């Protein structure tokens, strides 16, 4: 379903993704793990047509996302790491916009919106502007929105960040359900190793832009002779904490807070 060969992305002199290759089969749940700044999000951006690779090839369901952008986009759904909701619109309106953007027929749109908002316990708040939502509620809405159209491939970039255990549980149960019932291929990243261990069929570990291990959770634990995936992860990527500068989005949020203009 997803085939990646010798993928490279450089920003100036910095190599974010360095010669990465992997395959994800149809109906598989693949977890992409790595410390902060390892290249996970950059890889997802290239897979989802937001960035052009410097070199290497990507194939999504046989399509090249660089050339057949719209065809490729029809195949996948994505839940981003950072928020991508419109704070001025209500929960229902955010769903509606998404449905229209993905050409979901009116009736199906209404019906699925109701189902999903109920599932993620947001139905009662559907007419409230999203900027008044708590972080967890926004996250849940974002995930509900990702399921609105029925994609062949679902990208989840740290979907459980900031969610309480209940919602996290809800999310993974639902992901497993659509994966089994509709054969949706899932490509996810997370920092919670127990989640990856529980949900993923196969795992890829990336560090400094390079893929350092690949296999089933069991294989990876055997490879590193460790008991848990967390230990395996630390054995593969070391225990130093990665330095990360504040990016411009953080600076902007600061700016917005200061001026109270765009509250999102």
């Amino acid at each position: 379903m997803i085939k990646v060969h010798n993928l490279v992305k450089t920003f100036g002199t910095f190599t974010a993704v360095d010669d990465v290759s992997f395959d994800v089969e149809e109906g598989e749940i693949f977890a992409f793990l790595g410390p902060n700044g390892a290249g996970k999000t950059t890889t997802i951006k290239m897979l989802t047509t937001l960035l052009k690779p410097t070199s290497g090839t990507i194939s999504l369901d046989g399509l090249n996302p660089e050339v057949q952008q719209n065809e490729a986009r029809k195949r996948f759904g994505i839940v981003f790491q950072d928020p991508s909701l419109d704070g001025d619109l209500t929960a229902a309106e955010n769903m509606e916009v998404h449905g229209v953007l993905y050409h979901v027929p009116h009736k199906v749109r209404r019906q699925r919106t109701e189902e999903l908002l109920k599932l993620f316990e947001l139905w009662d708040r559907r007419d409230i502007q999203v900027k008044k939502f708590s972080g967890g509620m926004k996250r849940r809405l974002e995930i509900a929105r990702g399921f609105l159209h029925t994609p062949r491939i679902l990208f989840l970039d740290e979907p459980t960040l900031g969610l309480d255990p209940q919602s996290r549980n809800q999310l993974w149960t639902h992901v497993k359900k659509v994966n089994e019932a509709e054969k949706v291929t899932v490509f996810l990243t997370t920092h919670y190793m127990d989640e990856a261990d529980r949900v993923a069929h196969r795992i890829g570990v990336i560090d400094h832009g390079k893929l350092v291990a690949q296999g089933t959770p069991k294989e990876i634990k055997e490879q590193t002779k460790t008991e848990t995936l967390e230990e395996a992860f630390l054995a593969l990527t070391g225990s130093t904490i990665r330095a990360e500068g504040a990016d411009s989005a953080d600076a902007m949020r600061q700016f917005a807070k200061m001026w109270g203009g765009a509250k999102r």
Partner: protein
Amino acid sequence: MSVIYILWLRELKRYTRSRAQIIASLGQPLLYLLVLGFGLGPVFQRAGNGNYLQFIAPGIIGMSVLFSSIFSGLGLLWDRQFGFLKETLVAPIPRIQIMIGRTMGGATVAIIQGLLVTTICLIAGFRPVSFFTLPLALGFMLLIALLFAALGTAIGSTLQDMQGFQLIMNFLVLPIYFLSGALFPLTGLPKALAAVTRLDPLSYGIDGMRSVLIGRSTFDPRIDLIVLVVVGAMLLVFGAYRFSKIEI
């Protein structure tokens, strides 16, 4: 079509929901109109140029359309930083539709803003030569709005973050406004200044509005129309091109 419509509707909803912002955005034109309109009125009159309020009203309307449309285009920066842009960019729709929906939405908001300011001008004592020419003025407002919404989109697609915003404000938006003849007649100016005002597309927009509203103009209104349409079309193409190149 439905994609363009929903994105257009989104811009409109965002506008109507920020009541405080609507009122705030009327403050500046009101200040210009009342303080300059009445403050400079006597001097203007003595210089033999007639009623300053009559003269400045089309300029103030043009200003509000300019600010509102260019900022709607720059709203792209917010959407980029706060994520909603990504949501539209990964959707299976041609980028040109996203650009058109946004630009039309921004232009619509700018026109509403222009009409609000027109109403304020009428209340303050502005009288057009005939009320039947108001639709013509609306046409000029539409052209100004589209032109600068497209320019805003082009800039918003190019800038990465808010740091460039002050720069754009001080070295592009304000000069466009001050050099457009919104506040002073474009006749009898020093050569250099006259030349610069001719390069400013807003000059033609305001001149066009003035000619239909108070029957007074520097250029031929047909020239105004042609310049606005041609420059507007060029900026729309340029804006769409820049928008198609966005990488996040």
